[in-house]
């Protein structure tokens, strides 16, 4: 971490119906947005890389003995091992800029927490979601997530274009990226299902998977047309810069 750069912290506070409280603090490197983990002497067996390893995982057991996502989630899974997904809790989340709070089903809040852990874990598949961590939006709906995902992706394509790399304005590679993300989600639910735990953590990942599925479904079924009407100000023949209309794509 560069000197003077303070780490980025997200704090989750769960107040359960029995009055008990559980805190999680995620400290992130402000430049890489990777999770800064405390040294841990050992990890449980279910975190081993080859334990229900994702079919599309590019990592090797010899060099990476533990799944980075699983390692990040040991504390979360252990905390919620006896919890049903639809149980309600009061949840408060503090980002560097603001505080979010809601009384919600635990699966929704755990989904936000797990999503943050997954994207900051160093998993090569999920690394592509990491830019969204900086604007982490707890309790997000499927539409909000889809909007943020596509916005992030197109910003990434703009940066590629600016560097002379081929941009993907058609979102074709985003569909492939999210198919890969869904493979990870599915394998991770299988990994968790093998443990003697209740369904809260599994259903939290299922929610994340629904967001991924909704994004891909929207792209592939042209459901984005429903959002297009919001962009009327950008769809006039002459843009704000006065440029003439361009062909759709090169």
């Amino acid at each position: 971490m560069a000197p003077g750069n303070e780490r980025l912290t997200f704090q989750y506070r769960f107040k359960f119906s029995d009055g008990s409280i559980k805190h999680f603090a995620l400290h992130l490197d402000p430049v890489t947005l990777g999770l800064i983990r405390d040294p841990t002497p050992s990890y449980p067996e279910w975190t081993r890389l080859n334990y229900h390893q994702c079919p599309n995982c590019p990592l090797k057991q010899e060099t990476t003995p533990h799944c980075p996502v699983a390692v990040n989630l040991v504390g979360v899974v252990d905390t919620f091992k006896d919890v049903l997904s639809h149980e309600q809790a009061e949840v408060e989340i503090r980002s560097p800029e603001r505080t979010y709070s809601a009384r919600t089903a635990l699966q929704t809040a755990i989904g936000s927490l797990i999503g943050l852990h997954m994207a900051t874990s160093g998993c090569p598949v999920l690394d592509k979601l990491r830019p969204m961590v900086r604007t982490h939006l707890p309790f997000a709906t499927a539409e909000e997530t889809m909007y943020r995902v596509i916005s992030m992706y197109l910003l990434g394509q703009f940066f590629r274009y600016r560097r002379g790399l081929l941009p993907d304005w058609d979102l074709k590679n985003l569909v492939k990226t999210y198919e890969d993300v869904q493979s990870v989600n599915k394998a991770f639910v299988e990994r968790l299902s093998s443990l003697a735990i209740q369904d809260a953590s599994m259903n939290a990942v299922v929610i994340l998977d629904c967001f991924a599925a909704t994004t891909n479904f929207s792209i592939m079924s042209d459901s984005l047309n429903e959002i297009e009407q919001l962009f009327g100000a950008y769809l006039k023949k002459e843009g704000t810069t006065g440029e003439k209309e361009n062909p759709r794509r090169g």
Partner: protein
Amino acid sequence: MKKKILVADDDPALLQMMEAVLKREGYEVLTAHNGQEALNLVRQQAPDLMILDIMMPKMDGPSVYSSLQSDVTLSKIPVIFLTALATSNSTSDEEGLLGTAAIMAKPVNHATLLRKVSGLLGA
């Protein structure tokens, strides 16, 4: 006439996703956020197929199913149960049977879901 499918799950994201996928295939979709709501809808609307989450607030999926078994007509509605706990020994969408109902693992694969729905509706 469109086949009518009831989907019941306490996760709004999953409900929304399944509604979109099924509607696109031409089905009419009813949604419920818990078991009690599902049971009421089944009695009012008599859908052609039910997709029920196993673990839901107020009334779980198997209880909804059991409550309908005493009704001559409604007991014949085919059911798919959804659960995130069903994948322990599977590497893909493992499907099994609970009574005469099918079980489908979450996360739900769209193609598998549509194949199963089509099969149960005899479409």
